[in-house]
């Protein structure tokens, strides 16, 4: 996996490309992400870099957290995330990862926490059909059959049922970067990304299956 960047979703809008087509875009405040730790084979058993994002007051962090950040001389950050890499020699402690790592037209994967819908029923969560609302029917939003009877005598695991919907990590793959504003650390990504505005996102170059 290659190195990504942390960002905040700011919202969506629409811009026009050279051909005059309207392109829906999500505006992401991406980085700067200071490198807070470099993990190497000798010290940690694997290679990775850890980056921080989002400024907080010093009193919001614990002493161990502040001590950890002091090693890289970064100001207090809200989020820390690791990116596992094959080679960490190009990175240096305290240097920041910025939006200009990305280029226009590049494909990216965007991960975030999806909007929570709470405990949702069959129709909302799994798009089940609803029962008749009238003609004496009392079956309105029930699931129907959950499987056979005495044999097997149980409901198979994985049966789609009501439960928590959303508020889970979701990755949207292969979105196009439409525009990079390095000055203001903004990324314009075509299409929608998980979560509400203000949510934390991880953006990294797209993983193409079958390609290294």
């Amino acid at each position, binding site marked *: 996996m290659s190195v990504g960047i942390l960002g905040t979703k700011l*919202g969506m809008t629409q*811009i026009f490309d050279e051909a005059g087509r*309207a392109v829906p875009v999500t505006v992401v405040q991406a980085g700067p992400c200071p490198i807070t730790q470099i993990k190497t084979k000798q010290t940690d058993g694997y290679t990775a870099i850890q980056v921080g994002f989002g400024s907080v007051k010093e009193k919001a962090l614990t002493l161990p957290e502040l001590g950890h950040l002091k090693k890289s001389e970064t100001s207090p950050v809200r989020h820390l995330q690791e990116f596992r890499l094959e080679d960490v020699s190009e990175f240096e402690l305290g240097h920041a990862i910025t939006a200009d790592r990305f280029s226009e037209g590049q494909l990216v994967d965007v991960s975030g926490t999806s909007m929570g819908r709470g405990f949702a029923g069959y129709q909302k969560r799994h798009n089940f059909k609803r029962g008749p609302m009238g003609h004496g029917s009392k079956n309105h939003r029930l699931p129907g059959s959950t499987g056979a009877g005495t044999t097997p005598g149980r409901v198979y695991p994985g049966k789609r049922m009501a439960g928590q919907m959303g508020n889970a990590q979701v990755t949207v793959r292969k979105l196009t970067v439409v525009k990079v504003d390095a000055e203001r650390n903004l990324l314009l990504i075509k299409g929608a990304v998980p979560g509400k505005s203000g949510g934390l996102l991880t953006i990294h170059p797209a993983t193409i299956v079958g390609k290294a």
Partner: protein
Amino acid sequence: MSAQDIIRSIEAEYYKKETPEIYVGDTVRVGVIIQEGNKERTQPYEGTVIAKRNGGISATITVRRIFQGIGVERVFLVHSPRIESIKVIRRGRVRRAKLYYLRDRVGKATRVKQRFDRKL
């Protein structure tokens, strides 16, 4: 700078410098840029504005006209670069925000009364 301000500043560079004030009921002439091979030309499209949707950069107008006896409705993104110009020809006096009732009418009944208190 708040998130909303940043988004507005991104949109700002895509707005058209000047667009006429368009109301529902107006008769407009829209210059649509058409690409033929690698030649560009402007095709005028004239009709009545029967609806306005959205605001800001995504604002659209729906323009209806009768072409060869068949009703044609086209939706234009007001700020799209493919729209060369929009010109208001006639101001109309209507009492609805959406003139969908015009779809059920033919001939003389599709006329919209002209109003003179708004500037062209």
